[in-house]
Protein backbone atom coordinates (compact mmCIF):
# COMPACT_ATOMS: atom_id res chain seq x y z
CA UNK A 1 0.00 0.00 0.00
CA UNK A 2 1.16 3.52 -0.70
CA UNK A 3 -0.01 4.97 2.63
CA UNK A 4 2.60 5.50 5.34
CA UNK A 5 1.88 3.80 8.62
CA UNK A 6 2.89 4.01 12.23
CA UNK A 7 3.12 0.63 13.94
CA UNK A 8 2.53 0.38 17.67
CA UNK A 9 3.70 -2.65 19.63
CA UNK A 10 1.03 -3.27 22.22
CA UNK A 11 1.65 -6.65 23.83
CA UNK A 12 3.46 -9.89 23.13
CA UNK A 13 2.98 -10.53 19.41
CA UNK A 14 0.36 -7.82 19.08
CA UNK A 15 0.93 -4.85 16.81
CA UNK A 16 -1.53 -2.25 15.55
CA UNK A 17 -1.21 0.25 12.73
CA UNK A 18 -2.57 3.69 12.07
CA UNK A 19 -1.92 6.13 9.23
CA UNK A 20 0.95 8.49 9.95
CA UNK A 21 -1.36 11.35 8.99
CA UNK A 22 -3.45 10.59 12.08
CA UNK A 23 -0.45 11.07 14.37
CA UNK A 24 0.43 14.46 15.80
CA UNK A 25 3.37 13.58 18.03
CA UNK A 26 5.22 10.76 19.80
CA UNK A 27 6.24 11.25 23.43
CA UNK A 28 8.90 8.90 24.77
CA UNK A 29 9.11 7.76 28.36
CA UNK A 30 12.15 9.96 29.02
CA UNK A 31 10.39 13.06 27.71
CA UNK A 32 9.44 15.46 30.56
CA UNK A 33 5.89 15.62 29.20
CA UNK A 34 5.36 11.87 29.49
CA UNK A 35 4.29 11.88 33.14
CA UNK A 36 1.86 14.75 32.76
CA UNK A 37 0.15 13.19 29.72
CA UNK A 38 0.04 9.68 31.14
CA UNK A 39 -3.20 10.03 33.16
CA UNK A 40 -5.25 11.08 30.15
CA UNK A 41 -3.87 8.39 27.87
CA UNK A 42 -5.76 5.35 26.62
CA UNK A 43 -3.90 2.14 27.46
CA UNK A 44 -3.98 0.22 24.19
CA UNK A 45 -3.08 -3.11 25.83
CA UNK A 46 -5.99 -2.80 28.26
CA UNK A 47 -8.37 -1.62 25.54
CA UNK A 48 -7.50 -4.67 23.42
CA UNK A 49 -7.51 -7.12 26.31
CA UNK A 50 -3.81 -7.89 25.94
CA UNK A 51 -1.10 -8.08 28.57
CA UNK A 52 1.35 -5.19 28.19
CA UNK A 53 4.83 -6.23 27.16
CA UNK A 54 7.17 -5.26 30.05
CA UNK A 55 10.21 -5.47 27.77
CA UNK A 56 9.00 -2.52 25.69
CA UNK A 57 10.02 1.02 26.64
CA UNK A 58 6.64 2.72 26.71
CA UNK A 59 5.49 5.54 24.50
CA UNK A 60 2.60 7.97 24.22
CA UNK A 61 1.07 8.80 20.86
CA UNK A 62 -0.79 12.07 20.57
CA UNK A 63 -3.18 11.79 17.67
CA UNK A 64 -4.39 14.58 15.42
CA UNK A 65 -7.82 14.08 16.98
CA UNK A 66 -6.40 15.06 20.38
CA UNK A 67 -6.59 11.54 21.83
CA UNK A 68 -3.49 10.12 23.51
CA UNK A 69 -2.66 6.43 23.31
CA UNK A 70 -0.19 4.48 25.41
CA UNK A 71 1.74 1.67 23.72
CA UNK A 72 4.95 -0.26 24.23
CA UNK A 73 6.87 1.07 21.26
CA UNK A 74 6.39 2.72 17.90
CA UNK A 75 8.05 2.15 14.55
CA UNK A 76 7.56 3.84 11.21
CA UNK A 77 6.68 2.04 8.04
CA UNK A 78 9.77 1.71 5.88
CA UNK A 79 9.35 2.61 2.24
CA UNK A 80 10.90 -0.72 1.18
CA UNK A 81 8.46 -2.70 3.30
CA UNK A 82 5.86 -4.20 0.96
CA UNK A 83 2.59 -4.61 2.79
CA UNK A 84 -0.69 -6.12 1.75
CA UNK A 85 -3.96 -4.84 3.19
CA UNK A 86 -6.47 -7.54 4.10
CA UNK A 87 -9.96 -6.25 4.83
CA UNK A 88 -11.81 -7.89 7.72
CA UNK A 89 -15.56 -8.29 7.79
CA UNK A 90 -17.25 -6.55 10.76
CA UNK A 91 -19.02 -9.80 11.68
CA UNK A 92 -15.71 -11.24 12.93
CA UNK A 93 -15.81 -8.86 15.91
CA UNK A 94 -17.76 -8.92 19.14
CA UNK A 95 -18.50 -5.20 19.27
CA UNK A 96 -19.91 -3.02 16.51
CA UNK A 97 -18.56 -0.98 14.93
CA UNK A 98 -15.35 -3.02 15.12
CA UNK A 99 -12.17 -1.46 16.45
CA UNK A 100 -10.20 -2.86 13.51
CA UNK A 101 -10.72 -2.50 9.78
CA UNK A 102 -8.19 -4.95 8.46
CA UNK A 103 -4.68 -6.34 8.62
CA UNK A 104 -1.41 -5.11 7.16
CA UNK A 105 0.64 -8.14 6.30
CA UNK A 106 4.03 -8.66 4.69
CA UNK A 107 7.65 -9.48 5.48
CA UNK A 108 6.70 -11.14 8.74
CA UNK A 109 4.60 -8.19 9.87
CA UNK A 110 1.00 -8.67 10.93
CA UNK A 111 -0.59 -5.48 12.24
CA UNK A 112 -4.23 -4.68 12.90
CA UNK A 113 -5.38 -1.39 11.38
CA UNK A 114 -7.20 0.59 14.03
CA UNK A 115 -10.46 2.48 13.66
CA UNK A 116 -9.66 5.20 16.18
CA UNK A 117 -13.22 6.25 17.02
CA UNK A 118 -14.51 2.70 17.37
CA UNK A 119 -11.59 1.77 19.63
CA UNK A 120 -12.18 4.78 21.88
CA UNK A 121 -15.87 3.86 22.21
CA UNK A 122 -15.03 0.23 23.00
CA UNK A 123 -12.30 1.02 25.53
CA UNK A 124 -13.14 0.23 29.18
Amino acid sequence: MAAAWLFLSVGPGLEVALPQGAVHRLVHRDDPEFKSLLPESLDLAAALGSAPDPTLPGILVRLASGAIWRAGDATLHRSDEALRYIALSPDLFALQPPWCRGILEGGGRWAYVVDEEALRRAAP
Partner: protein
Amino acid sequence: MPPLDQGTLVLACGPRVLGFPGEAVREIRTWQAPRPLPGAAPWLGGLLSEDGVPWPFLRTNFWGESPKPPEVFVLLAWGERLLAVPGRDPWMVRPTPQAGPPEWGDGPWAGTMEAGGMKVALVDLRQLYLMLGLH
Protein backbone atom coordinates in the same frame (compact mmCIF):
# COMPACT_ATOMS: atom_id res chain seq x y z
CA MET B 1 -12.06 -42.47 -1.14
CA PRO B 2 -15.05 -40.70 -2.76
CA PRO B 3 -14.43 -37.33 -4.42
CA LEU B 4 -14.95 -34.36 -2.11
CA ASP B 5 -18.07 -33.19 -3.91
CA GLN B 6 -19.80 -36.55 -3.60
CA GLY B 7 -19.44 -37.36 0.03
CA THR B 8 -19.27 -36.23 3.58
CA LEU B 9 -16.10 -35.16 5.34
CA VAL B 10 -16.04 -36.78 8.76
CA LEU B 11 -13.96 -34.94 11.35
CA ALA B 12 -13.42 -35.36 15.08
CA CYS B 13 -14.11 -31.93 16.53
CA GLY B 14 -13.40 -31.78 20.25
CA PRO B 15 -15.44 -34.57 21.87
CA ARG B 16 -17.76 -35.00 18.86
CA VAL B 17 -17.60 -36.61 15.45
CA LEU B 18 -19.10 -34.32 12.84
CA GLY B 19 -19.86 -34.57 9.15
CA PHE B 20 -19.48 -31.66 6.75
CA PRO B 21 -20.77 -31.56 3.17
CA GLY B 22 -17.89 -32.53 0.87
CA GLU B 23 -18.76 -29.90 -1.73
CA ALA B 24 -18.00 -27.18 0.85
CA VAL B 25 -14.49 -28.45 1.60
CA ARG B 26 -11.79 -26.32 -0.03
CA GLU B 27 -8.70 -27.70 1.71
CA ILE B 28 -7.52 -29.91 4.54
CA ARG B 29 -4.23 -28.79 6.07
CA THR B 30 -1.95 -29.78 8.91
CA TRP B 31 -2.85 -27.84 12.04
CA GLN B 32 -1.37 -24.40 12.39
CA ALA B 33 -2.40 -22.18 15.25
CA PRO B 34 -4.14 -19.04 13.99
CA ARG B 35 -3.15 -15.55 15.08
CA PRO B 36 -5.37 -14.19 17.84
CA LEU B 37 -7.70 -11.31 17.02
CA PRO B 38 -8.41 -9.02 20.00
CA GLY B 39 -12.08 -8.22 20.44
CA ALA B 40 -13.10 -11.13 18.23
CA ALA B 41 -16.57 -12.63 18.11
CA PRO B 42 -16.91 -15.34 20.79
CA TRP B 43 -16.73 -18.22 18.29
CA LEU B 44 -13.56 -16.95 16.57
CA GLY B 45 -10.28 -18.59 17.54
CA GLY B 46 -8.08 -16.41 15.36
CA LEU B 47 -7.06 -15.76 11.78
CA LEU B 48 -4.66 -16.85 9.14
CA SER B 49 -4.51 -15.49 5.61
CA GLU B 50 -3.43 -16.61 2.20
CA ASP B 51 -3.22 -14.55 -0.98
CA GLY B 52 -4.84 -11.64 0.80
CA VAL B 53 -7.88 -13.63 1.91
CA PRO B 54 -8.54 -13.95 5.66
CA TRP B 55 -9.31 -17.39 7.06
CA PRO B 56 -11.37 -17.13 10.24
CA PHE B 57 -10.92 -20.13 12.56
CA LEU B 58 -13.53 -21.66 14.80
CA ARG B 59 -12.27 -21.88 18.39
CA THR B 60 -10.74 -25.25 19.15
CA ASN B 61 -13.30 -25.76 21.95
CA PHE B 62 -16.30 -24.56 19.93
CA TRP B 63 -17.87 -28.05 19.88
CA GLY B 64 -16.77 -28.87 23.44
CA GLU B 65 -13.58 -29.43 25.40
CA SER B 66 -11.17 -32.21 24.50
CA PRO B 67 -7.73 -33.13 25.85
CA LYS B 68 -6.58 -33.90 22.30
CA PRO B 69 -5.25 -30.96 20.32
CA PRO B 70 -6.27 -30.46 16.68
CA GLU B 71 -4.21 -32.20 14.01
CA VAL B 72 -5.68 -30.50 10.98
CA PHE B 73 -7.95 -27.70 9.96
CA VAL B 74 -10.55 -27.96 7.24
CA LEU B 75 -11.23 -24.89 5.17
CA LEU B 76 -14.93 -24.71 4.35
CA ALA B 77 -16.75 -22.32 2.03
CA TRP B 78 -20.38 -21.31 2.09
CA GLY B 79 -20.89 -18.94 -0.78
CA GLU B 80 -17.81 -16.74 -0.69
CA ARG B 81 -17.30 -16.92 3.08
CA LEU B 82 -14.53 -19.16 4.33
CA LEU B 83 -14.36 -20.85 7.71
CA ALA B 84 -11.51 -22.97 9.07
CA VAL B 85 -12.62 -25.79 11.38
CA PRO B 86 -10.03 -27.44 13.66
CA GLY B 87 -10.22 -31.20 14.11
CA ARG B 88 -8.62 -34.63 13.93
CA ASP B 89 -8.81 -37.79 11.85
CA PRO B 90 -10.48 -36.44 8.70
CA TRP B 91 -11.85 -38.92 6.21
CA MET B 92 -14.36 -38.92 3.39
CA VAL B 93 -17.35 -41.23 3.33
CA ARG B 94 -19.97 -41.78 0.68
CA PRO B 95 -23.46 -40.50 1.30
CA THR B 96 -25.36 -42.88 3.57
CA PRO B 97 -28.93 -42.95 4.84
CA GLN B 98 -29.47 -40.24 7.39
CA ALA B 99 -31.43 -40.25 10.60
CA GLY B 100 -32.81 -37.43 12.72
CA PRO B 101 -30.72 -34.84 14.56
CA PRO B 102 -28.43 -35.91 17.43
CA GLU B 103 -29.68 -35.82 20.98
CA TRP B 104 -27.16 -33.12 21.95
CA GLY B 105 -29.76 -30.41 21.88
CA ASP B 106 -29.76 -27.29 19.76
CA GLY B 107 -27.13 -27.01 17.11
CA PRO B 108 -26.63 -26.59 13.39
CA TRP B 109 -27.57 -30.19 12.71
CA ALA B 110 -28.84 -31.57 9.42
CA GLY B 111 -29.19 -35.09 10.81
CA THR B 112 -27.02 -38.04 11.78
CA MET B 113 -25.42 -40.98 10.04
CA GLU B 114 -23.24 -43.97 10.86
CA ALA B 115 -19.61 -44.08 9.70
CA GLY B 116 -16.84 -46.37 10.89
CA GLY B 117 -19.10 -47.65 13.64
CA MET B 118 -19.56 -44.14 15.00
CA LYS B 119 -22.54 -41.87 15.09
CA VAL B 120 -21.75 -38.77 13.04
CA ALA B 121 -23.68 -35.53 13.45
CA LEU B 122 -24.12 -33.84 10.09
CA VAL B 123 -23.57 -30.11 10.12
CA ASP B 124 -25.90 -27.85 8.16
CA LEU B 125 -23.49 -25.16 7.01
CA ARG B 126 -26.20 -22.60 6.38
CA GLN B 127 -27.39 -22.99 9.96
CA LEU B 128 -23.83 -22.90 11.29
CA TYR B 129 -23.03 -19.66 9.47
CA LEU B 130 -26.30 -18.12 10.67
CA MET B 131 -25.46 -19.21 14.23
CA LEU B 132 -22.05 -17.51 13.96
CA GLY B 133 -23.55 -14.35 12.47
CA LEU B 134 -21.58 -14.74 9.24
CA HIS B 135 -23.31 -13.20 6.27
